[in-house]
């Protein structure tokens, strides 16, 4: 079925843990201490360790590729990190189709904390086969 403007993507809820942040730090090779050292994170004014922005981008990437499957190709993913997120709190990833022009489809995507704050906002372009 072809996407239409206004279509909502099936929501993806992630449950990040401190363990996952350490796993991600290793897999990405980003060892900045704000992602696993509570004392360091607080020393730079954060409430505690926080999720990597790029981990949140990965969640939104999964939201898109789960929805798209083999129907098409992801051409662009752009995200802005507007707030910090801490492990132990579920992260809801959502999206909506904003434009359809033949095979060219644009979407807005975002990640929400449990209080409903959109701490990551972005857009994507996909091409339907």
């Amino acid at each position, binding site marked *: 079925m072809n996407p239409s403007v206004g279509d909502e993507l099936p929501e993806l809820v992630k449950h990040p843990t401190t363990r996952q942040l350490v796993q991600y730090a290793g897999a990405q*090779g980003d060892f900045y201490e704000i992602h696993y050292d509570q004392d360091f994170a607080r020393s730079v004014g954060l409430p505690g360790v926080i999720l990597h922005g790029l981990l949140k981008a990965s*969640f939104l990437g999964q939201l898109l590729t789960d929805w798209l499957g083999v129907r098409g190709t992801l051409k662009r993913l752009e995200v802005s990190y507007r707030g910090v997120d801490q492990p132990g709190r579920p992260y809801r990833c959502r999206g909506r189709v904003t434009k359809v022009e033949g095979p060219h489809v644009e979407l807005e995507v975002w990640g929400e904390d449990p209080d409903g704050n959109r701490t990551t906002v972005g857009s994507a372009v996909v091409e339907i086969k």
Partner: protein
Amino acid sequence: MAITSVIDRLRARIGSAAPPITATVEAGHLKRFAEAIGDNNPRWLEEAPPTFLVALAPPSMHLAEAEEYGKGWLNGGNRFEYVEPVKVGDRITATGRVADVYEKTGSSGSLLFIIFETEYVNQHGRTVARLRGTGIRR
């Protein structure tokens, strides 16, 4: 003034490319990356998921000299553009450069923005993806 000179030194690097980094996409690395992001789609055993390229070569240089400004880094945003899929065994060369450096002063103080751009080219000489990232010192 010290802070001004940090910005001047960083601005002098705008446009200049860092030494390219070449790495092969390994099956074990893809698997570990997919596990770390919690995406168990079997497709990612063979193909790079959307953000994998940042794990192959650093997406942004945490420029040591920028650390004279503020007390910590934040990631402001990322933009990935995909040209063709990246598969296990591909040999990718990443070339990064500083695209822009500027300071913004808001209600909560001053922030330094550093815009990084990275181009990823495969073993056939074709661009497979581009990444733009915003590093913030605060």
